[in-house]
C-alpha cells in the first residue's frame, strides 16, 4: 500500500468520511464496489466595469457508487453521507448493472491487483486558501479591474474573475483502497476590451494552480496580468494578420501545453486508443523527434503548483508519472484500472470524476514536454521565415491526431529576427507529424494551462506546459 503523504495544516478538518463508507461497504458484501464521497465547494467572484456580476458560494456533495456485477459496471449516487443511503445506492448500482449486463458483449475482466492507496493525501495550500476572506479577493478584483480600464483611453471595458474549487474526497473500495484527500485550486483571469474606429480587440490573461494564493501569483501579480491583458488588447488594434499556410513556428510553453494535451494527450488515453486513435498499435515505435520526451503526471514536475496535481486518482490508485513518449518513442498510454487490465499493464492513476454523481473516466493530469538544451536566442536565430506564437486560447483534437488550437499573439520572424506583433491565429496539424518536425527544445519550463477546464463529457482541471519548442504547423491566416 502507498504511504500517506500529509502536507499543510491539519486544522479545521471534518470527520474522516472513509469510516462511514467502510461501514456501508461491510453491510453489502458481494463483488467489486467502489465508494467515493466527494464534496466540492466553489467560491466565485466576477467584476466587470466596476460592478459585481457574480459573488457565489456553492457546495455539491454526495457519494458516487460504482459496482462490477455480471461483468459490467453499474453506477448510482446519493447526496447523503449516511450508511443507509449509501447501501441503497449500492443496491441501485447493482440492479442497474444486472439489468444491462445482457447488452455487454465482452465482460469486464477482473481489475488488476495494484498497490491501492490508504491514508490522508492533501495538496498544498488548502488551509491558507480557505482561510483567506472572500472580501480580500473581491477588493483585489475591483482594484485590478479599475486599473485595467484606466491603463488606456482605448480600453472600453474590463473584467476580472477569481474562483477557487475546494475538493474533499473519501475513496473506499472492496479490494482495499481507503483514502481521504483534500485539494484546492484557485484561479484568476482578466479580460480587457480595446476599441478604435468601430473595431474591437480583446486581451486576456489567466492563471490557475493547485495550491495557495501565494502560489497563484508567484510569477506575476494580478496587476501585472491586467497590464498585460490591456496592453495586448490595445496593441492588437493596430496589428496585421499573419499569412496562412504551412510554416515554421516557435511555440510558447502555453502552446506547447496545448499541443501536448490536445494533439497527443487525448490520443493516448487508453479508451480512445481502444477505439482506434492514431496512437493505437504504435507502442515502441517512433512518433516524434528524438528531442521529445512527453509525460503526464499527478505530481507538479519541474515547478510547483501545476493545476492538475493530485496524489491519488478516483479509483484509489497512486497518480504516478506516465512517460508517454521517451526520446521520440511511444512508451505508454494513460490508463484506469479497467483499461490496464485489458492492455495487461499497470494502471497509471488517470481515473478522474468531476463530481460525486459522475463516474471516473480516463483523464489527463499535468501533461508536459521535458525541457531540452536550446536557448531562446538560438531558436529564433534558426528561423529563416516563420512565426513566434504565444498566448493559448481553446483547443480540440481528433482521434486521427488532427488538432486545432488558438493563439492570441503572433510575431513574424524573418532571417532570425523577430518582427512586430500580429493578430493571433488558430494553428492546425497532425500530432505525430508535428512532433516529428521538432528540431529545437528550449531550456526553460513553465506550467501555463492551469486555468479553465478540459472537456470530455465531464470537465476536469488539468495543466500542461513545457519549454519553448520549434516545429512546423499550418497557420489559418487571413490571406492565402
Amino acid at each position, binding site marked *: 500500500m502507498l504511504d500517506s503523504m500529509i502536507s499543510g495544516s491539519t486544522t479545521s478538518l471534518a470527520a474522516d468520511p472513509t469510516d462511514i463508507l467502510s461501514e456501508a461497504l461491510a453491510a453489502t458484501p458481494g463483488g467489486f464496489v467502489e465508494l467515493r464521497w466527494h464534496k466540492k465547494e466553489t467560491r466565485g467572484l466576477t467584476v466587470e466595469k466596476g460592478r459585481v456580476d*457574480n459573488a457565489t458560494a456553492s457546495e455539491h456533495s454526495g457519494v458516487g457508487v460504482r459496482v462490477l456485477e455480471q461483468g459490467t459496471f453499474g453506477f448510482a449516487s446519493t447526496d447523503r453521507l449516511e450508511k443507509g443511503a449509501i447501501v441503497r445506492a449500492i443496491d441501485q448500482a447493482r440492479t442497474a448493472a444486472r439489468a444491462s449486463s445482457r447488452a455487454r458483449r465482452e465482460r469486464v475482466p477482473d481489475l488488476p491487483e495494484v498497490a491501492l492507496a490508504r491514508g490522508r493525501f492533501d495538496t498544498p495550500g488548502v488551509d491558507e486558501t480557505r482561510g483567506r476572506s*472572500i472580501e480580500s479577493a473581491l477588493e483585489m478584483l475591483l482594484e485590478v479591474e479599475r486599473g485595467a480600464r484606466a491603463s488606456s483611453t482605448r480600453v472600453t471595458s474590463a473584467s476580472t474573475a477569481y474562483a477557487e474549487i475546494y475538493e474533499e474526497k473519501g475513496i473506499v473500495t472492496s479490494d482495499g483502497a481507503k483514502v481521504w484527500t483534500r485539494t484546492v485550486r484557485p484561479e484568476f483571469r482578466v479580460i480587457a476590451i480595446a476599441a478604435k474606429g468601430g473595431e474591437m480587440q480583446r486581451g486576456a490573461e489567466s492563471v490557475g494552480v493547485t495550491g495557495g494564493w501565494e502560489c497563484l501569483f508567484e510569477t506575476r501579480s494580478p496587476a501585472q496580468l491586467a497590464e498585460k491583458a490591456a496592453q495586448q488588447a490595445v496593441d492588437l488594434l493596430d496589428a496585421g494578420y499573419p499569412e496562412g499556410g504551412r510554416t515554421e513556428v516557435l511555440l510558447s510553453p502555453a502552446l506547447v501545453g496545448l499541443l501536448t494535451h490536445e494533439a497527443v494527450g487525448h490520443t493516448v488515453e487508453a479508451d480512445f486508443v481502444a*477505439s482506434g486513435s492514431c496512437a493505437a498499435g504504435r507502442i515502441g515505435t517512433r512518433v516524434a523527434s528524438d528531442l521529445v520526451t512527453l509525460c503526464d503526471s499527478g505530481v507538479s514536475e519541474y515547478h510547483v503548483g501545476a493545476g492538475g496535481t493530485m496524489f491519488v486518482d478516483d479509483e484509489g490508485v497512486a497518480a504516478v508519472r506516465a512517460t508517454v513518449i521517451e526520446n521520440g518513442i511511444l512508451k505508454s498510454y494513460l490508463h484506469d484500472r479497467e483499461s490496464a487490465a485489458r492492455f495487461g499493464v499497470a494502471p497509471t492513476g488517470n481515473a478522474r470524476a468531476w463530481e460525486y*454523481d459522475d463516474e471516473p473516466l480516463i483523464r489527463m493530469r499535468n501533461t508536459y514536454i521535458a525541457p531540452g538544451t536550446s536557448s531562446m536566442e538560438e531558436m529564433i536565430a534558426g528561423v529563416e521565415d516563420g512565426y513566434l506564437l504565444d498566448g493559448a486560447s481553446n483547443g480540440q483534437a481528433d482521434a486521427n491526431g488532427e488538432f486545432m488550437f488558438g493563439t492570441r499573439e503572433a510575431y513574424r520572424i524573418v532571417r532570425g529576427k523577430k518582427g512586430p506583433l500580429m493578430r493571433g491565429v*488558430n494553428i*492546425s496539424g497532425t500530432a505525430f507529424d508535428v512532433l516529428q518536425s521538432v528540431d529545437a527544445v528550449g531550456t526553460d519550463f513553465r506550467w501555463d494551462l492551469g486555468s479553465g477546464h478540459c472537456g470530455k463529457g465531464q470537465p476536469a482541471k488539468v495543466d500542461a506546459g513545457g519549454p519553448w519548442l520549434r516545429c512546423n504547423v499550418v497557420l489559418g491566416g487571413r490571406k492565402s
Partner: protein
Amino acid sequence: MSTRTSPGIQAAERGHDTAAQREREDALLARCESLVAEALRAGADEAEAFATHAEKSLATFEKGDLKLAHVDEGSSIGLRVFKHQRLGFAATNQFDTASLAGVARNAVALATASPADVANRLPDARPIVQLPPLVHAGLDRFGIEEAVDLGHTLLTRAQAFDKRLSVDGANAGVSRVAQAVHTSRGVRAVESDAMVTLSISGMAIAGADVGGFHYQSDAVRDPACVQAALHQVVDDFAGTSVGNLGAQRAPNSYQGLVLFSPDAFLDLFVAPVLSAASAIAVQRGRSALAQRLGERIGVLGLAIHDTPEDLGLAGAGSFDREGQPARRFALVEDGVLMGWLYNGYAAAVENRTSTGHARGGARGVPGLGAHAISVAGGTGGTRETLLATLGRGLLVQRFSGSVDPASGDFSGVAKSSRWVEGGRVSGPVRETMLSGNAYQLLARIAQLGTVAERVDGSARAPWALVDGLSVTAG
C-alpha cells in the same frame, strides 16, 4: 399541464403530470419558499430561490460495447439575495435545515461584502403563457433497460451501416427535470420536462487511414419520435464518418464562397451575434453591434428568432431562470438587428422589462442568453442546389475553432469537410483552415437553404453559402 405559475396570475393546469411529478413540483416550490423566507430572516432585502430536481437513466457505450449503466437522482437549490442593492449568491444540494440556513447566511454575507449597484433588484412577477405539456406520458415507463436497448440499437445500426465504423462512444438515456423559482417579489413558477437523449461519436478506420472524428446527437420529448430520431442520428453519423476516409489536402487555398452545414453556420455566424446582442455586452461596451440596432447587419431575408415555444427543441420552456415569461423574440428580421436580449439585471439598468432571457441553473447567478434559436430558411433550395451554386470550393460540416465575440474574427479547422468540383462533392479534405470575420460575413451570405434543419435537438438552421472566406489548404 406541467407548468404552474403564480396563483392569481394564471390558473394552474396539469395535463399529463403524474402524482409523483406533482409531488416533486410541490416539494421544490415549498423548498424555494422556505429558503426565501430564511434569507429574509437572515437580513436580505430581496431573495430569489431557484431549485431543480433531476432523474437520469443513462446507458453509456464505449468501443462498441456497453460501458456503464448509470441511474441517478438529485436536487440543487440556489439563492440570490440583495441587501442594500448588493449581490450575494449561494447554492447547495443538501436540503437539511442546517444546510439551507447556511446557504442563507452565506448569500447574505457575500452581499454584505459586495459594492452596491442600483440595478440590483429582482424583477416583478409577470403573467406566464403556459406551453403545452413538456412531459409525455409515454416516458413514464422509460428507465435504464429501455436506455440500454436504445443504445444497443444505436450501435447495431451503426455497425450494419459499414464495418469500417469505429464507435468511440454512444449514449442513450432519459432525463426528467423539474425546476421551480420563487422570489420575494411574488414570482412563483414550476415546470417539468422530460427528454430522451441520443448521441454517437467516433470515426471510420480503413487500415492506416483513420478518418476524421464525427459526432451526432439529438434530444426528443415525444416517445413516438425516438426511433426516427435514432435512425437519423446514426445515418448522419455513419455517412459522414465513412465519407471522411481518404481525406486529402485541399487542392488550393482561396478566398471566396464556402458552403456551411446548419451546425457550422450556427457556430460561426449565429453564436457571435447572440453574444453581441446581450444587453449587458452593449451596456458594458463590449458588443461589436452596440451601434447597429435597427440597422441591416445581414443580407435580406436573414431572420434569427428565439423560439422557446418550439416544443421540438430542447430549450423550450414557459419561463426563464428568473421566472419571467419566455416568449418568441425576433433578434434579426430581414437582415435588420431588431433588439437586445435582457435579463432582469440588464433590464433594471435601463428601467425596462426583461425579455425573458435569464439563463442558467441552480448553482449560479442567472446569466443571459437565448432559449432555442431558429434561423429561417431562405430561397437557396436544397443542399444539392447550393452545391451547384458553389461550383468549386469547400463544404464545411463542422467548425473546430474559435470566434472572438469582441471583434468577430474567427480562425479554425474545417472538420468533416469536402471539396466540391463542378457542383458535386469530389472527396473529403483535411487540415483545411478557415478564417474571416463573422460580423462582416453576415452581409456576404450568398444563399440560405430553403429548409431549416434541427441541429442536435437544440436549434434550427438552414445550409448557408457564404462569400469572402479565407480558405487555407494544409
